[in-house]
């Protein structure tokens, strides 16, 4: 089932929540909306669901114009950040509720609920009330209800945000496969780049009510079209600096780099950036870019170290495999493989090297 938004915008009290946006969701796929709080993820979802009416533009569902058609008439299921279940119903009744609304027979309802409960590991909990469940189980119940509805469009609005770290990890792995068989088009909103990468599928990066890029998740991550997309899709944050290209080199103020792959670039002002995990202590690449920074703080997380570096007025992060413990104030030398350098023009558009 395809969903297309054509030049859709939404303005509330003269403030634009969504600027004119066009997007065609991948039918039967996992579509991720990635962006910080207030980027417009929820607004966009509400438009897709038909809960809000767009200020302008049209929405097509399976080729049919559904702009302005109430949500009840579309086969849409939604799961929220808060755990929304019917408090007075058991888990069984909760999951069965959309089936009963469809007027299915008792036997059919029982069969389907058992089947869904099996997938979501709710089998032993069917007789409990939502208040007797843990957060993870409550959210599983909500997901089960969405699954039972057999909707052609499933909207998941940060469904894991209120769960424990480890539970999130577990559900994150299951989610994409959960809806795979139903053929539903899934839309998933999240603020976390790592989550988008794990869920895979397609990602739309959102910033201040605009989609900056939409494409296969790993393409958007590795090959962003602009600075905003690269910034949104980076955790830890993208390392960034202003650079002036002149006489065959990038002048960053605190250092200068050879142009490498970007020799065709006209002289002028640019912004250069790269991802924290691309900084290395050694490099066997001849064209590697040297970086010398002063350690501000080192954070160690299991097998990785996050080294916060001060370079002039810039603060960069190096995410490194292994445990490194440097003292604040220490100077360290690092390298960046020049293939990993992202260059943006002054308006933030990505400039791709003609060589790489």
């Amino acid at each position: 089932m395809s969903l297309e938004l054509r030049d859709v915008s939404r303005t509330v009290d003269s403030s634009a929540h969504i600027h004119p946006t066009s997007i065609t969701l991948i039918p039967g796929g996992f579509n991720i909306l990635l962006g910080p709080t207030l980027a417009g993820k929820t607004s966009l979802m509400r438009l897709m669901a038909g809960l809000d009416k767009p200020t302008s533009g049209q929405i097509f569902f399976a080729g049919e114009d559904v702009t302005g058609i109430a949500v009840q008439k579309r086969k849409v299921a939604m799961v929220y950040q808060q755990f929304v279940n019917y408090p007075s119903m058991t888990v069984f009744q909760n999951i069965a509720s959309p089936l009963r609304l469809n007027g299915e027979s008792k036997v059919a309802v029982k069969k389907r609920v058992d089947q869904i409960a099996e997938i979501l590991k709710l089998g032993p909990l069917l007789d409990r009330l939502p208040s007797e469940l843990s957060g993870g189980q409550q959210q599983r119940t909500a997901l089960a209800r969405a699954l039972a509805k057999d909707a052609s469009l499933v909207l998941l609005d940060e469904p894991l945000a209120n769960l424990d770290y480890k539970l999130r990890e577990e559900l994150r792995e299951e989610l994409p496969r959960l809806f795979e068989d139903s053929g539903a088009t899934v839309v998933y909103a999240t603020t976390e780049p790592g989550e988008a990468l794990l869920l895979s599928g397609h990602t739309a990066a959102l910033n201040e009510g605009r989609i900056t890029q939409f494409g296969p998740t790993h393409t958007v991550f590795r090959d962003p079209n602009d600075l905003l997309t690269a910034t949104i899709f980076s955790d830890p944050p993208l390392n960034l600096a202003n650079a002036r290209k002149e006489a065959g080199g990038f002048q960053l103020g605190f250092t200068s780099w050879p142009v490498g792959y970007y020799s065709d670039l006209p002289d002028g002002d640019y912004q250069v950036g790269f991802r924290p995990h691309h900084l290395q202590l050694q490099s066997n690449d001849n064209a590697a870019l040297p970086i010398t920074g002063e350690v501000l703080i080192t954070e160690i997380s299991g097998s990785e170290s996050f080294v916060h570096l001060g370079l002039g007025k810039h603060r960069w992060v190096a995410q490194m495999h292994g445990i490194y413990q440097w003292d604040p104030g220490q100077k360290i030398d690092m390298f960046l493989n020049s293939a990993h350098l992202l260059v943006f023009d002054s308006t933030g558009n990505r400039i791709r090297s003609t060589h790489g």
Partner: protein
Amino acid sequence: MAEITLKAIRHSYQANPIAPSDFAIRSVDITWRDGGAYALLGPSGCGKTTLLNIISGLLRPTEGAVLFNGVDVTAQDPVARDIAQIFQFPVIYDTMSVYRNLAFPLVNRGVSGEEVDRRVKEVAGMLDLSEMLNQRAVGLTADNKQKISLGRGLVRSDVNVIMFDEPLTVIDPHLKWKLRSELKRLHQRVGFTMIYVTHDQTEALTFADEVVVMHEGDVVQVGTPRDLFDRPEHTFVGHFIGSPGMNLMPCQIVDGKPIVGHSEIPVDRFFADHDKGNGLEFGIRPECIHLDPAGFPVSVMRIDDVGRYRIIRAEFEGQPLQILVKEEELIPSENLRIRFDRSSIQIYKDGWIVDRGVAK
């Protein structure tokens, strides 16, 4: 600032606790040195918030004692204990400016006007709040509000310990990075004893010098972030720390070597015979499994690309096995073979590490 000792703390929310399951805290003995950065890590319901409230004095333990610098404070309320606490959601005084918010704890303690002004400005400087001092606290962003909550703890010179109860819950990922590292720098500058409660391993490991991992009311391990990663003392720690967590597979010990299924795994230690028997598990971190054409064959179920690395979800001897592979490393399309890093293998019996392994 103070050294904090928890002596045989047990706590139950019930009036007459009998069974171990009646206790939210089963038995905790910890000493935290003055000026350290500590984290209490565990899933929801593990008792970490209960323990935090016992330290702050909001709860009185059923049994045991809380000591600050060797003095028993178990009967004292939070005010008498001179602690500061930062909550999940920023607590600010709506009616006051940022300046007055920061000055509030000092004014209440009758500190002189000049001293108040000096301390507030100093703390505002540390927290990058100097430019907002005259604004109303109400209109600020969540991260700035959380900084104010923290600032109200930092202005006081008499604070024994600053406690954080999942303070980054409402903060966006990008700002989390900033706030987290600022917090750590701040700790190194001011040297307060700090205790950080969270379910998020990254927050706990990056912040703390020493992490206390809790599970169902018990402390399962106390150690440096590195200890917890390299040598989890309990399978729960192995699973809970690391993303994905440690691979655990049932195994046997024959002639001092672990055997998983039909494969004898080479190790750098000798596991004594009395470790034989049921309930043995072989543990290895996904980071410590390497691709090796001469190694054990595994069947690949799926490969997840997570950006800077990939997770191979495979099967080894019929057991699920997760393998972490770096971004630039090539994964052969068929006949994948692996090797377990010898020094990173751990053996568990009934969940607890077999500590009697002797070096060869």
